């Protein structure tokens, strides 16, 4: 790797972010290209770490000296006794995530050159974008919890700032509660921030609890991942005080918030109010992956520790919770995605759904680890799906951005017939949608299959080892996953069809008449799209290399030969389930949307049952309304009550009473000021008498 | 009853009588004069109480500068002022003459005292005090002389300060007058 690569791959974007206002003073073009260059430079440093993972040795390319083997840690210790340090960990998982963040970040920055062209607030945009990339890479490459949490917070901040980026817009807002669209955007940003905050607080409590346990029990308090894996005393202490299970659940609270799982998933659809590049970067490719990264990081620690201490039922609880929440969220979001009206909202729901898949895979990995003692399969499946999802989701968002840029509307039903106007975008988006749905031979298929396969293996192994409950759970999870796959195909086809295949809507016709033609995106925008589409197509072929990559540094994992992987994936029983899901989802979608044999509107009107379901899904299962009324409304009422009764009733009254006492006292005292010197003398004499009495009797 | 007793009681009686007179007399000038007499009697009492320095200073200040001040102020407070310019100048002359006299008296007395006691002390001899002072008192007076000699600068400074303040006060009294004339 290039020297200091792990430090620089997050340091360069951060420095670039800080330098952006300076560059802006020089000139607009300098600022734009400079910002993009910084992110590309950071990505190059990140790329340079990849070969080292393959060889297993970290080598400095400039000087040729060997620095260490994987996992390689480079740290600066601040306070040794408290275990506070700052460091980076070169490890398959962190390098992989850093490259995804850096690579997609750089690509989207290039895309943003075209998309955000002419926006007056571009300096702020570049600043937060670069800062975000730096923060995300910091998050994944950190070697201890504290630093990871710092990166976590940085991405939360940048996400808030970027979602509410257009807070000055003056158009009327789409929601009746707010006056202008600008206010609505700001509200979306705040909602994202506050909702993820709830998860952040849970995460922080869990981190500090673990730290406190290491403080009490271990030789040295630590936040470090590697050390937590080696020293196991802290887990014993946590079990002894009964805190292990709550801590683990709270630790998962962070991913629930950041990765938009149930019950904290409500912020992601509103977060689509930001620019599309923001949605692509933050909500498709990186920030929402941070939660999955955390689960992946923590899982080996738990497995190692619990192997030693034999607390495997804690591992079991954790994995079960992760898997169930993941599965339920996937199902939930897919149902909402089927009926959404806006392009970006469909993509947002599909993001939530796919991350649910990833959580499901990780949870299964944990359960398999509980059952059979190794977690490799589920772990690998979740991570592989992460990579392919990042690619095709970014592709989908960017093409949606191109469509939005061209038609300037967010509602899908106002588009239509764009196939003839935007052929390149159509092809790219089509590839992306197929990959999302998991159609072979695109990368989405391979990764989804791996997840199904892992679930199947879990169920089988569970029965083999005699854990009937887990076996049943495994089957249920598999079933939910398959149904969700069907729904995924359904809404992907729906989206593509409505945007591109349907005839032109009134809105498009008006625009054409007015002379604002719907045109293809400029090259700076469709080149990244093509790149991502290509990666999505051939990504499946990377599976074997990926496996070698991921498990470098783990002992006792058998690396399968490449051909074996492909055959194993295709020839397992789950392939039939996948095909069944395709049929279940694809055939209605084809009829409804593609060939337009049955009109969906008429269908809904005829069948009341479907209409009820439709409105239930459309209102997002009323979860959002529940939160707004109960939690937000309740809190505001509570604050009002506190203000009225406490602030005004007690504190203000106390102030008035105090003032009244002082004033009345002084009024009474005024009467002694006669202005006559003789009376003053009499007062002096009284004082003298008092002193004499004091001397006599005191 | 010894003569000492009579003398001291008489002094105390005169003190109180003069004080009462100062308080009760209707004419302000008479009251001020009575005050001056009271201060003089007080000085004598101080001398009898074996405090010669205090006596002299009291005499100089209270029976000198302060009385002069009082009289100056009183004279400035006549109800009417036309046709009294001569009296104004007379008052000025009186006051300045009095101040000069006081300064000269102070200097002379200081020279006397310091030469009488200080020179002897500086040359290392013991004090030759009058014989009616008992021996213990002589020792004590010697100590007093020693200590006051050591801090003799403060003595001079106090006197100078008192006189300076008195002079300032008198000058302040005259300020408006000159302004009004012009």
């Amino acid at each position, binding site marked *: 790797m290039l020297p200091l690569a792990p430090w620089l791959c997050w340091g360069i974007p951060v420095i670039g972010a800080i330098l952006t206002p300076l560059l802006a003073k020089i000139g607009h073009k300098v600022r734009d290209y400079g910002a993009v260059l910084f992110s590309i430079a950071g990505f190059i440093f990140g790329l340079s770490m990849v070969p080292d993972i393959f060889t297993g040795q970290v080598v400095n390319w400039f000087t040729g000296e060997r620095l260490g083997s994987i996992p390689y840690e480079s740290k600066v210790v601040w306070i040794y006794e408290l275990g506070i340090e700052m460091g980076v960990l070169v490890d398959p998982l962190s390098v992989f995530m850093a490259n995804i963040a850096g690579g997609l970040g750089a690509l989207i920055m290039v895309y943003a050159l075209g998309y955000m062209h002419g926006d007056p607030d571009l300096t702020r945009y570049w600043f937060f974008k670069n800062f975000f990339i730096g923060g995300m890479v910091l998050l994944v490459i950190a070697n201890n919890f504290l630093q990871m949490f710092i990166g976590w917070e940085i991405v939360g901040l940048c996400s808030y700032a970027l979602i509410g980026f257009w807070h000055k817009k003056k158009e009327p807002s789409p929601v009746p509660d707010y006056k202008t669209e600008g206010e609505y955007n700001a509200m979306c940003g705040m909602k994202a921030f506050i909702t993820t905050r709830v998860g952040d607080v849970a995460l922080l409590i869990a981190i500090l609890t673990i730290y406190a346990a290491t403080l009490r029990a271990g030789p040295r308090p630590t936040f470090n991942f590697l050390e937590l894996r080696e020293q196991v005393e802290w887990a014993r202490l946590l079990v002894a005080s009964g805190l292990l299970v709550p801590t683990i659940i709270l630790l998962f609270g962070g991913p629930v918030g950041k990765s938009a799982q149930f019950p904290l998933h409500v912020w992601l659809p509103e977060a689509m109010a930001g620019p599309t590049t923001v949605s692509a970067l933050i909500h498709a490719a990186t920030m929402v992956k941070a939660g999955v990264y955390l689960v992946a990081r923590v899982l080996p620690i738990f497995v190692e520790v619990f192997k030693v201490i034999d607390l495997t039922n804690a591992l079991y609880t954790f994995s079960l919770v992760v898997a169930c929440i993941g599965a339920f969220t996937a199902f939930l979001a897919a149902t909402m995605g089927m009926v959404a009206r806006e392009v970006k909202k469909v993509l947002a729901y599909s993001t939530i759904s796919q991350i649910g898949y990833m959580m499901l895979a990780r949870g299964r990995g944990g359960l398999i680890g509980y059952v059979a003692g190794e977690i490799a399969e589920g772990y690998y499946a979740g991570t592989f799906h992460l990579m392919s999802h990042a690619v095709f989701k970014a592709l989908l968002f960017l093409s949606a951005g191109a469509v939005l840029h061209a038609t300037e509307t967010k509602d899908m039903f106002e588009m239509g017939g764009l196939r003839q106007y935007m052929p390149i975008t159509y092809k790219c988006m089509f590839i992306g949608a197929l990959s999302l749905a998991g159609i072979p031979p695109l990368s989405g298929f391979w990764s989804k299959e791996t997840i199904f396969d892992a679930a199947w293996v879990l169920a089988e192994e569970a029965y083999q080892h005699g854990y009937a409950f887990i076996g049943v759970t495994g089957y249920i999870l598999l079933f939910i996953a398959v149904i969700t796959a069907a729904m995924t195909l359904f809404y992907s086809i729906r989206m593509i069809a409505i945007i591109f295949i349907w005839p032109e809507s009134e809105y498009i016709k008006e625009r054409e008449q007015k002379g604002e033609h719907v045109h293809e995106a400029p090259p700076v925008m469709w080149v990244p799209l093509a790149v991502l589409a290509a990666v999505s197509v051939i990504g499946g072929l990377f599976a074997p290399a990926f496996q070698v990559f991921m498990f470098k540094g783990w002992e006792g994992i058998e690396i399968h030969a490449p051909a074996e992987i492909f055959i194993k994936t295709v020839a397992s029983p789950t392939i039939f389930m996948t095909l069944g899901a395709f049929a279940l989802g694809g055939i209605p979608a084809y009829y409804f949307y593609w060939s337009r044999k049955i009109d969906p509107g008429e269908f809904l009107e005829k069948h009341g049952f479907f209409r009820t379901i439709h409105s239930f899904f459309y209102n997002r299962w009323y979860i959002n309304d529940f939160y707004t009324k109960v939690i937000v409304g309740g809190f505001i009422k509570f604050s009002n009550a506190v203000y009225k009764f406490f602030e005004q009733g007690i504190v203000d009254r106390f102030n008035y009473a105090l003032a009244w006492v002082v004033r009345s006292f002084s009024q009474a005292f005024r*009467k002694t*000021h*006669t*202005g*006559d*010197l*003789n009376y003053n*003398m009499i007062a*002096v004499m009284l004082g*003298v008498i008092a002193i004499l009495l004091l001397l006599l009797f005191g | 009853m010894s003569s*000492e007793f009579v003398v*001291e*009681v008489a002094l*105390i009686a005169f*003190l*109180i009588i003069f*004080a009462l007179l100062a*308080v009760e007399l209707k004419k*302000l000038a008479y*009251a*001020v004069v009575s*005050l001056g007499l*009271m*201060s003089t009697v*007080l000085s004598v*009492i*101080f001398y009898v*109480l*074996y*405090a010669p*320095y*205090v006596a002299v*200073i*009291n005499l100089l*200040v*209270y029976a000198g*500068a*302060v009385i002069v*001040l*009082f009289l*100056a*102020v009183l004279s*400035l*407070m006549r109800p009417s002022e036309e046709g009294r310019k001569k009296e104004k100048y007379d008052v000025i002359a009186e006051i300045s003459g009095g101040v000069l006299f006081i300064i000269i008296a102070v200097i002379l007395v200081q020279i006397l005292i310091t030469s009488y006691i200080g020179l002897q002390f500086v040359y290392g001899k013991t004090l030759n005090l009058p014989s009616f002072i008992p021996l*213990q008192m002589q020792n004590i*007076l010697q100590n*007093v002389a020693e*200590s*006051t000699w050591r801090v003799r600068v*403060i003595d001079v400074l*106090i*006197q100078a*300060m*008192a006189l300076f*303040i*008195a002079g*300032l006060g008198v000058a*302040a*009294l005259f300020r*408006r007058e000159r302004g009004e004339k012009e």
Partner: protein
Amino acid sequence: MIGLNWYLAASAILYLIGLYCLATKRNLIKMIIGIEILINAAHLNFIALSTTTAGLDPLARTYVIVSIGVGAGVIALALSLTLLVYRHYGTLDVRKMRRLKW
């Protein structure tokens, strides 16, 4: 020398005369005279108490000397203020100077 009590009594009587004058008299000049009587009473007290059969206390005498000087300054200032007050009010009657009334 007669007993200490005589002098202490004299000092107390002077003190009371001074207070009486301040409390009763209307004329400002009389009041300043009263202040001066008060000061003299204190001086007499000091000197009387510092003259004992065991010895003389030079410290008290020193204080008295200082106090005489300060007292002179105070009276000078009071007199100049009196003069200005007379110019302003036209009278020396304290009962008529009520500007410090509430």
